[in-house]
């Protein structure tokens, strides 16, 4: 129809004047809804820029931590549940998206109670997601010592064999050390000088594991450690196991690319902030619904539809955050 009018407009000056006089709704959407779409479009570009930055930095690194190793904790002290917790988080967000659609549908039939009920469930879903994210961040920061400048998850660029165990005790000569392959990801454990491993392992003193390590002989009780900011205040020591690679080089575990931590906290934080602001807006609209403002407008609870668009967008972004950070 719009195209037809445009054609006429091109031929007659009179109808072209009409086209600019207003009163027509070519997109059949209100100003508010249309602008919500364009805001989401711009927001999509922001998120895309972040995720593309993640991709570019990942492509520039020789190694990158494997997500199924990094994200394998689950509440209750479970350590080997790869990707399970984040799957639960994804489900919570999907469910809250579904309840939001229901709220919008109830709005269309002017059912105030229905809108309140389904929006409340959506708010609960959003808060649960934020709680899960808080747990995930806390585990990474306080349990595994990740930060925006430190990545305790390193990866092997080459296959090889470890020379000492997780406490820094050298394997005996002749025994097979623990093997690893290229790309294998490890977590650097923090070293606590005061407590930790007992001294019942003193019997493997004096072992000689070839000419590769001359400083290894004094291995004794303190394992080989590294610090992220040597000498600076707040630096944490991490046990760094030694190994020899297939090509014969000897080395020790190092930190992974710190960009991983920086990108993770920045991007999931930005998404979490969207969820947080989404919950805040949902609550505001929810109060308005409950007060009966929208019922009087008789426009099918359009404000609920607008905040619904935003909420689905948060879910949409999570689809890609989930893909890029946890699956690939």
């Amino acid at each position: 129809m719009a195209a037809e009018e445009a054609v006429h407009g091109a031929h007659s000056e009179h109808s072209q004047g009409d086209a600019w006089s207003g009163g027509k709704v070519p997109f059949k959407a209100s100003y508010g809804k249309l602008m919500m779409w364009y805001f989401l479009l711009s927001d999509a570009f922001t998120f895309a820029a972040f995720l593309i930055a993640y991709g570019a930095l990942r492509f520039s690194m020789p190694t990158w931590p494997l997500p199924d190793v990094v994200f394998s904790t689950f509440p209750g002290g479970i350590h080997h549940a790869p990707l399970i917790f984040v799957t639960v988080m994804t489900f919570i967000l999907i469910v809250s998206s579904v309840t939001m659609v229901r709220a919008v549908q109830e709005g269309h039939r002017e059912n105030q109670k229905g809108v309140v009920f389904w929006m409340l469930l959506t708010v609960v879903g959003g808060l649960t997601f934020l709680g899960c994210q808080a747990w995930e961040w806390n585990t990474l920061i306080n349990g595994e010592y990740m930060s925006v400048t430190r990545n305790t998850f390193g990866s092997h660029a080459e296959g090889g064999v470890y020379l000492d165990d997780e406490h820094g005790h050298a394997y005996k000569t002749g025994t097979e050390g623990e093997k690893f392959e290229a790309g294998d990801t490890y977590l650097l454990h923090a070293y606590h000088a005061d407590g930790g491993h007992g001294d019942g392992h003193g019997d493997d003193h004096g072992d000689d594991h070839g000419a590769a390590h001359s400083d290894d002989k004094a291995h004794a009780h303190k394992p080989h450690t590294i610090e992220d900011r040597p000498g600076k205040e707040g630096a944490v020591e991490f046990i760094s196991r030694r190994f020899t690679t297939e090509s014969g080089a000897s080395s020790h575990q190092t930190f992974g690319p710190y960009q991983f931590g920086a990108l993770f906290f920045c991007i999931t934080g930005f998404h979490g902030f969207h969820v947080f602001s989404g919950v805040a807006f949902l609550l505001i609209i929810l109060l308005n619904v409950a007060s009966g403002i929208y019922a009087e407008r008789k426009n099918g609870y359009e404000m609920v539809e607008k905040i619904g668009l935003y909420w689905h967008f948060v879910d949409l972004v999570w689809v890609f955050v989930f893909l890029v950070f946890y699956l690939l």
Partner: protein
Amino acid sequence: MAGLSYEEGKKKVVYGFWLLGAVTIAEVIIALLGNGHIFAGVTIPKLIMYPIMIGLSLYKAYFIVNEFMHMKYEVRGLVMSVILPTMLLIWAVIAFLQEGGAWGKRRAEIKKKDAIQLNEGKATGQLVHPTELTGELRAY
């Protein structure tokens, strides 16, 4: 939401929930299977695994935009004004991943040159001593 009755809409929501849930579970199973977490020693090549997971995620995104955000029921002009600009991202992905790969290659090259040792007293044809050269290369 033109075109759908209330009952139809409700059915569509339940359908959407199961669909999104099933696709998510499929993605996670592929990730776990492919990385050898389900059967020890069994892995899927990344070249097969990644396109499948990307495809499934794009399908989820398509479904959310189309059904949950009701894009399907909007006027064509509105749809195009939102969808067409996002097409620019296709090139952004290609260009920046390519660029990232180039950074990595350049860094590896610099590291290789850093490791070059000159034999003292041997003619090399180089005018600059490698230790000075590396300083210059680092400026990239």
